[in-house]
C-alpha cells in the first residue's frame, strides 16, 4: 500500500535564506515496515540527499530518534501503518530542543556536554578493600537507569528544557542516578549537592513526558524522584525545590490540604515571597485565588495522618526536619 510520508527538511547550506520545508514521498509500505525502513527506502531508491542517522535498527544504539506525528520515537521500532491509521498521515520531523543540522540530523553537542557535566563514571573509594560487595538488590536498584541508550528522546519531549536550555535535562539526571544509586559510589554526597543547585534536579516540572516517551523503560522521572528524595534525606534541603516539597508535606500533615500562601513563604523565604505579591494580586483579579485565603483543617484530618503513619512505617520512620 502506498502511503504518503511527509518529512521536514532543512539544509542550511542551500540557497540564500535557507528555511525548513516539507517534502512528501510516496512509499510502498509493506507489512511491519518501520519508519526507519521507510527512510532507508527513500534514501536508497529516491533521494540520497535525505539526512538521518541510523545504525543498529533494533532499538539499542540510540541513533535514530526523530519525531513521528509530533512525538519523539525511535524510527527503527515505530511501524508506519499504525501511525498512518491513527493520525491519517505520517509526518517525520527532527527532535525538538536540539538545533537542526540537516533534515532529521540534530546537533547532539549539548546533549554530550550535559552528560559530561555529571561526571559520568563511577568514583569508587580509593581503597579497593572499601568497595562494598554488590548484592542482587543493589544491582536492581540502578537497573532501569542503566537501560538508557542515549537516544535523546526524553530531552526532546522535556517541557522544562524547552523554556530553560541550561536545565541539565532528564537523560543526564537518569544517568546521575546510575551513579548516586550505586552502592560502590564514594562521591554520592558531592554529586547530590551539585545536582541540588540551579538547573539541576529541582528544575524538572514533573510533566512525565520523559518517562512516557522513553523507548527503553528508563523512566527518567522515577530516577529524578529518587535523586530528590535521597538529596532531602541527606539534608540537602536549603533550596527552593526541596523546601517546596517539605512545606507541601507539612501543609498536608497539618491541614490535610495545600496551604499555598504559606507554601510560597516557606519555599521562597520572606523577602523573595514579597516579590510574589504583584503576581498574587494578578491571580486575585483573574479570580484564580479561591476563598478563603487562610485555610482551616479538613474534616478527615485523622485519616490523612493515618496515611502518613502507615507510609512512614514503609519508608522507615518520620524523617528529621
Amino acid at each position: 500500500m502506498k502511503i504518503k510520508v511527509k518529512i521536514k527538511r532543512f539544509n542550511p547550506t542551500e540557497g540564500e535564506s535557507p528555511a525548513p520545508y516539507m517534502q512528501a514521498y510516496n512509499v510502498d509500505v509493506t507489512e511491519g515496515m518501520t519508519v526507519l525502513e521507510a527512510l532507508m527506502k527513500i534514501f536508497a531508491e529516491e533521494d540520497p540527499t535525505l539526512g538521518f542517522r541510523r545504525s543498529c535498527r533494533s532499538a539499542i544504539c540510540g541513533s535514530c530518534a526523530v519525531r513521528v506525528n509530533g512525538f519523539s520515537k525511535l524510527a527503527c521500532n515505530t511501524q508506519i501503518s499504525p501511525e498512518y491509521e491513527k493520525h491519517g498521515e505520517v509526518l517525520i520531523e527532527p527532535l525538538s530542543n536540539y538545533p537542526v543540522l540537516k533534515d532529521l540530523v540534530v546537533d547532539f553537542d549539548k546533549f554530550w556536554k550535559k552528560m559530561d557535566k555529571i561526571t559520568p563514571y563511577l568514583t569508587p573509594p580509593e581503597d579497593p578493600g572499601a568497595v562494598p560487595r554488590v548484592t542482587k538488590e543493589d544491582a536492581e536498584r540502578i537497573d532501569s537507569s542503566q537501560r538508557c541508550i542515549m537516544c535523546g528522546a526524553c530531552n526532546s519531549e522535556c517541557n522544562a528544557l524547552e523554556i530553560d536550555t541550561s536545565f541539565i535535562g532528564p537523560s543526564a539526571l537518569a544517568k546521575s542516578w546510575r551513579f548516586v544509586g550505586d552502592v560502590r559510589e564514594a562521591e554520592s554526597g558531592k554529586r547530590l549537592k551539585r545536582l541540588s543547585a540551579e538547573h539541576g534536579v529541582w528544575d524538572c516540572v514533573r510533566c512525565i513526558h520523559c518517562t512516557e516517551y522513553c523507548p527503553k523503560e528508563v523512566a527518567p522521572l522515577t530516577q529524578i524522584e529518587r535523586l530528590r528524595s535521597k538529596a532531602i534525606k541527606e539534608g540537602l534541603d536549603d533550596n527552593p525545590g526541596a523546601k517546596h516539597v517539605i512545606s507541601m508535606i507539612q501543609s498536608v500533615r497539618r491541614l490535610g490540604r495545600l496551604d499555598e500562601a504559606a507554601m510560597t513563604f516557606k519555599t521562597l523565604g520572606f523577602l523573595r515571597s514579597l516579590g510574589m505579591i504583584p503576581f498574587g494580586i494578578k491571580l486575585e483579579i483573574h479570580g484564580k485565588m479561591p476563598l478563603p485565603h487562610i485555610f482551616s483543617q479538613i474534616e478527615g484530618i485523622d485519616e490523612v495522618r493515618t496515611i502518613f503513619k502507615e507510609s512512614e512505617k514503609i519508608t522507615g520512620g518520620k524523617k528529621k526536619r
Partner: protein
Amino acid sequence: MRAAIEAAKRGLNVALVSKIYPVRSHSVAAQGGINAALNKDDSWEDHMYDTVKGSDFLADQDAAEVLCKEAPENILEIEQMGGMFSRDSSGDIAQRPFGAAGFPRTCYLSDRTGHGLVHVLYEQLLKHNIFVYEEWYVIRLVVEDNISRGIIAYELSSGKLHRLHSKAVILATGGYGRVYKTTTNSLTSTGDGMGLALNAGVTLMDMEFVQFHPTVLKRTGILMTEGARGEGGYLLNSKGERFMERYAPHAKELASRDVVSRAEQTEIDEGRGVDGCVLLDIRHLGEKKINERLRQIRNLAVKFAGVDPVHEPVPIKPGAHYSMGGIKTDVDGATSVAGLYAAGESACVSVHGANRLGGNSLLETIVFGRRAGRKAAEFSKGSPLSSFPDSFLKDTANKVANIIKRDNGEPAFRIMDELKVTMEECCGVFRDRTRMTKGLEKVWELKERYAHISLVDKSDYFNTELPALIELEHMLDISEAILLGAVEREESRGAHCRTGFPGRDDKKWLKHTMISTEKGEYKVSYSDVTITRFKPVERKY
C-alpha cells in the same frame, strides 16, 4: 574503546576516530553475555577446551589460552571501572549456560550485556579525556615501507579530508555482516577496517568462516539472544518436535551455533519449517523469568515480529552474525605492518577458528583490546614518528573528487542489494563449488559496475551517500575474499559446510586461509594452526 583507554592510561596522546558516536557501536547489540571461568568449579583450561572444540580445532591454541586465562581478571576490571553484571542470590556475578559450553560461565547484564559494556567503556573514555572525532569516516590507511604513518578520514559535517599523523593505528571496526541480506548486524557493520587493511597490503585470515546465528527474526534479521536457549528455550519444527534431539542428542538446543543453524536449515529445506522458519519457544519459562532475564528480546519480538514470546513461539531462522576471520594479528593485536594493530571482530587472532562460541566475542574485544592498546603504547614510546607522505593525501583527494565528478552512472544501492542477495544465495549455511563460482563471477561483475557508479548527492555537508559508496567498496572486496577462501576449502569445518565434502579433513585442511593483494590481484595462501594442549578429535555435541 578498550584499546584507547589502555593506551591513554599508559600516558599516550590518544584519539578515537569513529563514523558514528562511540555508544552507537554494534557491540551494544550483543545480548547474551561474556564468558569467564569465575566459579571455583570451573577452570580456564575447560573454557579453553570448549573454545578450541567449538572452533573445530582451527583456533590457534596459544591465542585461545590467552583469551581464557585473562578472562576473569578482565571481567573484574570492567566491574571495577563501574560495570554492573546481574547477580545471583548469593551476590556473586551470575552466570548462565551457553551453547557448547561445558559449564555455565556466561556472565551477563540481563539480555543487554554488550550495551552495558559499551557504556561503561564510554564512561572511561570520558574519564581519560580521550578525544573523539565523531562522524569521521576513515577512508585510507597510510602505510609506506611496511610502516604505518596514520590515516586519512572524511569528516561528515564538512566534506573535508583530514590527515591524522600518528605513530600507531589500532583498527577496531567490527565485522562485515552487512554483506549478507539476512543479518543481525548494524547497518554500519560493513567491514571497513578489513577492507582498508587489505588495500594497505595487510593479510586477511580465515575469511570463509562466517557465523550464522540460529535465532534471528525472519524479515529484519534482528537477534534473539542465545540466552533464550541458555535459560531453557526450545526449538520446534512444524510438527512441534524438538528437532535438535536428532542432531545433537546430548546438548540439544545448546549445541554450538554452526550445528544448530545447519539443523534448522535442514528442517526448513526438508519441508518441516513454518513459513521459511522454525520456532523458538520460551513460553514454559514463564512471564516473570522472561521479564527479568529476557526482557529486551520480548520487546523486540513484540515490536518487530508482532509475537509475544510469553504467549506464542517466535518464528526464527539462521542469519549472518559474526566474522570469525579478519585482519591477521598476533596475540598483541600486531599486524604485519609496524605500528598497525587490530582488535575485536575486525581482527583474526585467531581464537574463534571455524566457529565462535557465544559469549566469546565480547570477551575477545576486551582481552585483546587491552593487549593491543598496551602493545601500541609500548611501540609508540619506543619508535620515532615516521613521515606522512603527502602523495597519499593527494591520491585520496583525487579519488574522492573523481567519484563526485562522475555523472549518469548506476546508483550504488542497486549494486549493494545484488551483492547481499548473491552472498546469501551463494555462500550461506550450505555451500557448493557451482554456486560459489557463480557468486564469485557475480562479485567480479559488480566490481566492474562499481567503477562506473555515480552520486546524486554532490554536496559536502552531511553527505551520507558518499560514505555509503565507500562502504560498498569494502563490502565488495570482503565478499570476494570470503568466496575465494570458501571455494578452495574442500571440507566441512565449523561454520563452513561444503555439500559433497561432509567431513573435516585435518590432513589437508587443518590450516588457516590467508588472503592478500598483489598489484590488485587476490592471492590465497595457507599457514599452520598452532596446537598446544588439545589434539584435534571428532567434534560431537
